[in-house]
């Protein structure tokens, strides 16, 4: 059977119709991981035995008429940033190569409670710092459309695995574009919800005020299904929002007639590759056909997103990563001479270059004498960027534009040039700074590589956002494309 060409929703229906079992699906996708992952390197840890046991348990529940719901028994994988009890949780770093988490993240608990079957933990940029999945201690992840290209990052393993249909869906996290950019590069659907919608408890922190968990899937409908199960207030995360979760799945199917989509003029300026611009323009035309109105909008401060982000995120990261000191868990250098030596060598050995670079940038930005000029200034501009979005949303229902300025680039192509690498997230970062929900959906291809459209919604507007993506996917087939090597 070709179960891997099906969506989560279709697989769920197939189980419900007794056309397959959770066991059969788990075995099918395990076989795909075993067959293809050598090439793609999307998994850091495989938990197949536990997955088969979980699948059997789901089948038993169903046989007993006690199914947990539409996700019960469906296979997926977690980005290796979520703590999983009894399972190695590395965050893509040598620092945590020996770390077996003694507890589950809230997201892990929630998907477990929904009955989902986790096949393992996916590769990622070290501590989620990267846009190409080349900073992982566990090696580069390859793009399934062209294995000489990067899959994007930091959730590169999660995106590539879904792109190659090794699993029907995965979790991811997005601090500056880490779900949307790899979704665009791998030709799949990815959503980062509103900041505070999904609990961060147990999700290893990169930049606390920006980090948000989300989903990779092949359709907006699947993303809605999974996000529904992940969302909600968590008393263990003080930044999660106490507000009921909208019904994301039944909200799909609403007409876009009369909706207004804003196109930020800054997203269509110089520097956008023509192939990307053409595909995005075509997608916007499709939205017009669906009845939406289109309107140019101005986000006057959005150009400052990247510099603001590279002050705020590293500043928070510099403190968040201080706990990795070799004292309680994780990597510790051999035979430290004294305390200072323990700290220095543990951290020098345990962290990779990009992580060190960001810790240094953040430490600098918070230092006495620079704090006001960098951190405080950046926070002020961050507020302006957020205000720009809120003002725009007074006139439009959604914002659309390219997810990335260009096509997936070659492995090793940008690793020597951090600034060029950072500019990959030029369109996505502002959304994190404003705490808004954002998505990427596939809307075209060039040179055999996928192109993503970014959609941005209002705060807590996940339902409307997912519906807009779903409507597009009802009349187009880009989301159905599977890379030739992985059909």
């Amino acid at each position, binding site marked *: 059977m070709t179960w891997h060409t099906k969506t989560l929703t279709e697989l769920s229906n197939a189980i419900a119709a007794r056309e397959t079992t959770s066991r059969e699906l788990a075995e099918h996708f395990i076989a795909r991981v075993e067959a293809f992952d050598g090439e793609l390197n999307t998994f850091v840890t495989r938990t197949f035995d536990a997955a088969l046991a979980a699948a059997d348990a789901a089948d038993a529940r169903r046989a007993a008429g006690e199914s947990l719901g539409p996700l019960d028994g469906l296979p997926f994988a977690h980005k290796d940033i979520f703590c999983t009890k009894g399972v190695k949780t590395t965050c893509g770093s040598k620092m945590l190569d020996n770390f077996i*988490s*003694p507890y589950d993240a809230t997201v892990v608990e929630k998907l477990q409670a929904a009955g989902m079957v986790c096949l393992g933990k996916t590769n990622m940029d070290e501590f989620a710092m990267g846009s190409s999945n080349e900073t992982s201690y566990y090696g580069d992840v390859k793009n399934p459309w062209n294995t000489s290209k990067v899959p994007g990052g930091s959730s590169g393993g999660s995106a590539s695995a879904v792109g190659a249909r090794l699993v029907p869906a995965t979790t991811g996290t997005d601090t500056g574009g880490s779900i949307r950019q790899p979704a665009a590069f791998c030709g799949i659907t990815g959503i980062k919800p509103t900041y505070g919608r999904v609990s961060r408890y147990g999700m290893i922190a990169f930049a606390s005020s920006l980090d948000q968990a989300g989903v990779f899937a092949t359709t907006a409908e699947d993303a809605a299904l999974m996000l529904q199960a992940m969302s909600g207030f968590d008393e263990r995360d003080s930044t999660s929002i106490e507000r009921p979760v909208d019904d994301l799945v039944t909200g799909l199917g609403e007409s876009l007639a009369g909706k207004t989509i804003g196109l930020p003029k800054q997203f269509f300026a110089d520097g956008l590759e023509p192939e990307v611009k053409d595909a995005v323009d075509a997608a916007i035309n499709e939205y017009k056909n669906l009845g939406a109105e289109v309107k140019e909008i101005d986000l006057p401060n959005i150009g400052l997103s990247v510099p603001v982000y590279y002050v705020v995120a590293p500043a928070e990261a510099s403190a968040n990563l*201080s706990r990795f000191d070799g004292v309680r868990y994780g990597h510790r250098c051999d035979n430290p001479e004294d305390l200072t030596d323990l700290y220095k060598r543990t951290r020098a050995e345990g962290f990779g270059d990009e992580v060190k670079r960001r810790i240094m940038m953040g430490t600098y930005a918070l230092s006495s004498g620079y*704090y006001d000029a960098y951190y405080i200034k950046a926070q002020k501009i961050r507020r302006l960027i957020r205000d720009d979005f809120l003002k725009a949303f007074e006139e439009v229902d959604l914002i659309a534009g390219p997810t990335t300025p260009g096509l997936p680039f070659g492995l090793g192509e940008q690793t020597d040039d951090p600034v060029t690498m950072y500019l990959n997230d030029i369109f996505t970062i502002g959304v994190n700074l404003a705490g808004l929900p954002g998505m990427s959906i596939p809307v075209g291809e060039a040179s055999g590589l996928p192109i993503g459209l970014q959609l941005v919604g209002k705060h807590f507007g996940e339902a409307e956002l997912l519906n807009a993506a779903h409507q597009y996917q009802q009349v187009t087939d880009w989301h159905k494309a599977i890379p030739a090597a992985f059909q």
Partner: protein
Amino acid sequence: MYSNWETVIGLEIHAQLSTNSKLFSGSSIAYGAEPNTQANEVDLALPGTLPVLNKEVMNLAARLGIALNATINKRSVFERKNYFYPDLPKGYQTSQLELPIVEHGELFISVNGEEKRIGVTRAHLEEDAGKSIHGAAEGCTGIDLNRAGTPLLEIVSEPELSSAAEAVAYMKKLHSLVQYIGICDGNMQEGSFRCDANVSVRPKGQEELGTRAEIKNINSFRFVEKAINYEIERQIDLIEDGGEVVQETRLYDAEKNETRSMRSKEEANDYRYFPCPDLLPVVIDDSFIDAVRGDMPELPDAKKARFVSDFGLSDEDAAQLTNSRPMADYFEAVVADGVEAKMAANWCNGELSAWLNKEEKDVAESPVSAAMLAGMCKRIADNTISNKIAKEVFEGMWNGEGDADAVIDAKGLKQITDTGAIEAMIDEIIANNAGQVEQYRAGKEKVFGFFVGQVMKATQGKANPAQVNQILKQKLAG
């Protein structure tokens, strides 16, 4: 010799808040548990864990704010204070810098009978670190994280204290206050109430402050006094010898009675404070503050004034009784039991305090309960025992021999008030001491005391003194 100098002292006091659980986690803060048994995944700073504010601390901090007549900020912000240390699991301490919960308070102290207002700059919430146990194993340092995350209020005074005596008076007043309002148990041995002192000196009349040294972690009133006095002398001697005080952190060594340098300003950390993105700013409103205010106990100064006006006690007696809330409560319980206030005050401040001091006990641990003391006072009032005998009764009660009546019975301490019995005894004494009788009758009145002594000796002190005096006078007059 130091009369040309003036001292400026500011105190930073860490009071451990009396909550059940930690500032940002549900772990217990009970003292004395096995190492690392009160440290959950948040306290261990496992990857992915997040802090959640224990809301009870806001209530406790607001109490202090009210007691210090301070501003309670409606919006306060937790920040990260970054530094590496093995007993600091996150690599930063969560504290408050720019927007502390309490600001602009005041505390009145009294030294040598003079009252002085000391400004309290601020009081902010922060988490305690764990404990490094050096030499836990051969060549190793152990880390105990039970204390990590324990909620503290750091209470910072203005540099307005001008002697070690004032510093101690301030610290004692605050120590009493935090216990009064039930926010801290005040246990200094267990580190629930600790003090850092900033000390500087300047020539008398100079406006500009001298360079200060900070003496860290002084854990008793006596040491605070000694450490500050040592430091004052050190700084003056240094300057008079042509040297300069350097800004540094110093440690007080109680054994040698000296302070010594820990680290200088140059070696000091840049703590890189910034608002903690895992915690939202804490916002409170007037109704919260009003609710806390409505729940406040009577404060020491108000209680003292009431003891003077309602009970007619002297300022001194009232001050001593209200120094600690348990003592004040004890006193009021004795009075409530029907004992005259002055008598109750005398026994609380006298015999009871003396025994508590002698055996280093708190009022709460006193073997003589308020009801027992009241029972004894009633026996004084009804002439069953004299004041003098009462001390013996008190000792008996203290030593667990039962209540006043039981001790009086068991030891036969009941006062002899039978006039006939006393008369017979006096007759016998007069008959046996003809010489002294003659002296007395010849006008040597001092001899009267001899006869009183003889009667008391014969009755083992149990004769009613007033009766003895009266009968003796009659009989001796012939």
